[in-house]
Structures are given as structure tokens and as C-alpha cells.
């Protein structure tokens, strides 16, 4: 699929300061052309969210770093695949990182599963609230967490095991000793309730 970009005006300012005022979608056009500086701005904007997701899924700093690194390098090497019709760059980046983390979790061997997690890392790496945007994101994150916590336990659990744990619905059914159909039903009901609670989540987090 060809990238769906509007042509960038020629003669634009390609300095770091100039790039920082561009929208993600415009930056992706430059990334597609191989501009490392444009990629760096994309990285700066979304690396914290990507690392937070990866660490939540992997529970180990080194593995989370590998996942984020793989994800962003994949983005750099396949910029042509970004299709703005399918959502924001942030959603796309986090989708790539999520898929990479699932791959990493599912290829873990027995010898890796016994590793000790990096307990307490959250305190050392907690993102400071520096700007209005970051404060806003922190509030929005609280809304999403609240919506998840308001679900009945059996629904929030299957969503967390699937999305953050990287488990398949079959593995979850086995773990919880419940029919596969029941697990799928809980997933669907939980997501539908969260959608009602959040209104339009796409607007909440962008």
C-alpha cells in the first residue's frame, strides 16, 4: 500500500526546531524519505508511552528496552506502511510495540520465565509531569485505568491477561478453567463497557 500523505511544501525548515512544529503525519512523510532527524522527533514524542507499555507487558527493563528498540527500528524501516486512515501515529507506534511485546512474551523459554522482574522500577523511571500535554495525558490515563477497574473482575482480568499478558484466549481459558466462548464473551463485554464509560476513547488518548 502506498503511503497516504499530502505532499510537504518544498523548502521547509528541516532543523530540529523546524521539525518539532510539524504534525506526526507530516513527519512520517519525511521519515519515509529517510530523514533521521524527523524520526528522532517522532521518537521523542512517543518513546515514553511505548516504553511504559512494553515494561507493563514484559516486566523487565532490558526486555522492554529491546521491544521498544525493535518497534521503533521497524517503524523507521517500514515508514511506508503508515496509513493515516487507520489512526494516529501514536496509535500505530503503540500497536507495533504491542505486537513486538507479544512476540517476545510468546517466544520466552522455560529458562527465561524464571527471571526476577525489576520490582520498583516504576519509582525510578516515573515520568515527570513537565508540560500541560503530559499532565493532560496523565489525567487521561487515570480515566482509562478507572474504566478498566470499574469492570467486573472476571472481565478486567481477561482483558489484562490478553492485552498486557500477551496470552491467547485459549491459554486464558485453560488458566481460568473456563470455556473459550466464555472468555471471548468476557473480553467483548468488558471492552464494550469501557467504550461506554470513556465515550470515544480515540479522542481521550490522542
Amino acid at each position, binding site marked *: 500500500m502506498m503511503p497516504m500523505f499530502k505532499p510537504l511544501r518544498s523548502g521547509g525548515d528541516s532543523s530540529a526546531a523546524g521539525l518539532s512544529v510539524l504534525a506526526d503525519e507530516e513527519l512520517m512523510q519525511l521519515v519515509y524519505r529517510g530523514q533521521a532527524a524527523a524520526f528522532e522527533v517522532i521518537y*521523542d514524542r512517543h518513546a515514553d508511552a511505548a516504553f*511504559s507499555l512494553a515494561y507493563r507487558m514484559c516486566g523487565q527493563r532490558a526486555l522492554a*528496552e529491546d521491544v521498544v528498540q525493535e518497534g521503533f*527500528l521497524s517503524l523507521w524501516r*517500514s515508514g511506508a506502511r503508515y496509513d493515516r486512515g487507520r489512526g494516529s501515529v501514536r496509535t500505530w507506534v503503540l500497536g507495533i510495540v504491542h505486537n513486538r511485546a507479544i*512476540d517476545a512474551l510468546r517466544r520466552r523459554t522455560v529458562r527465561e520465565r524464571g527471571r526476577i522482574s525489576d520490582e520498583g522500577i516504576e519509582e525510578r523511571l516515573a515520568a515527570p509531569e513537565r508540560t500541560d500535554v503530559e499532565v493532560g495525558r496523565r489525567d487521561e490515563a487515570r480515566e482509562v485505568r478507572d474504566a478498566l477497574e470499574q469492570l467486573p473482575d472476571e472481565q478486567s482480568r481477561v482483558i489484562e491477561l490478553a492485552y498486557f499478558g500477551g496470552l491467547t484466549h*485459549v491459554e*486464558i481459558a485453560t488458566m481460568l478453567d473456563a470455556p473459550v466462548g466464555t472468555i*471471548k464473551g468476557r473480553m467483548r463485554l468488558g471492552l464494550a463497557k469501557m467504550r461506554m464509560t470513556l465515550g470515544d476513547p480515540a479522542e*481521550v488518548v490522542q
Partner: protein
Amino acid sequence: MSADESHFDPDSCGGNAAPYVLGALTDDENEAFRGHLESCSVCREEVAALQVVAAALPAAAPQLSAPPQLKRRVMASVREDARRRSAHGADELAQDRRAPGQVPARRWRAGALARLQWRPNLAVATFAAAVIALAVVAFASGGGAGTRVSRATVLPRGASASLSVSDGHAQLNILDMPQAAPGRVYELWLKRSASAQPQPTDALFTVARDGAASVGVPGGVSGVSEVLVTSEPLGGSRVPTLPALIVARVA
């Protein structure tokens, strides 16, 4: 089971939409459901409705700052890529940015990995000759202070790999590598001297559809002379079962 759940028919159209947006289908189910989506408007609408919630879920994770050294490593690879593409011109850039699925099938058919599994002795001889012929070490001027990049020797035709070492971290960047054969996975090994046996690592990996992968070297490369990659059965091996496909000498 709640009353709501008792009314849900997971086998009806749309039953796989929720596990799909959560990434909870198996690889085979995921592939089949993607195909189904192309012809089923019911499932497409269900996925669209649930996808917006799944897209919000990352915000439920505790928000952390990405470590600064992670950015240094990522940008070192990106700048190295950009420099390589610049050096090789627009043709290579266009090749690297090909549409998904366009080239891998062709490369797989022509790839050396399949031949290696049928004729390992020939592969060993070819590889040994290649090791002697090629050992390029470059210092990446634009990859950040202290970043060293070693070009690796790679057996599969058309594939390439380089080892970047920076801030005590090392990563192997691979391009155009054939997919691991069914039931196998790539495994990273560390060799501490020319005569030493390769030591297994926890780094088991596959390559993306375009044949790319970036693999962190567990524990770095202090005291390591070579980083190797072999194809191993799922779950990895304690001792290499096939000759190395990639050898990166640590500069």
C-alpha cells in the same frame, strides 16, 4: 458466568473481534480472521467499535520515562541506516522500503537457509570461506560518540547484519534475512575466544516480514570475541545444532 455472557455466542460472526483487537488470537486464527474481515462487514464494524478501546489501553499502564541510553542506541542504528542508504543511493532505499510481502517470498525461495538445511557440509565450507574473506569494521562517525559498528559475515544470500556497540550495550541489526524455517527460531550465541564453544543466550528471535530484526546482546559484549546466530528448534538449544548463519566479530 454472568447473564450477559450466557447470551453471547462466540461462534457467531463477530465472536473473534474482541480477542483480535486485544492480540489474543493465535497466529493461525489471526491470519484467518484477517482474511474473514475482508468479506464480512459485521466483523469489520465490531472490530472498529472495539479497536478504539484497545487503542486506549496503553494509557492504563503506569507511565514511565524511556531510558536515555535507549534513545542513543535507537538513533545510532537509524543514523547508520541513513548513512548506508545514502552511500548506496536511492535504489537501495526503494528496495528497503518495498511493500510488505513483495520481496520476502522471492527471497525465501532463493534463500540460502533452505539449501543449508539440505546440504550442511557445503554450507559450512561456503561459510568458512566467507569468514576469511570478510571482516569489516567501521567506526560510525554519525552514530553517536563511542558507537562502534562492525559489519557481520552473513550466510544467507542478500542478507546483511551489523553489530553496534555503545555505552556497554550491543545490538545486532539484521536486514533481508529469510524467515526461520517452520518449527525453528533464531538464537544468539556469544563466543569468548576463537577456540571456545559458543555460549547460549536468552535471545531467541524471529525476523519481521521484511527480514529485519534488531536484537540486543544480553549482558553486552565485554570479553566476547564473536556474536553468532544459528537456526534452532523452538525454545532454543544449549549447543548449536547447525552452523552459524551470522558471525559478527566484536571490534
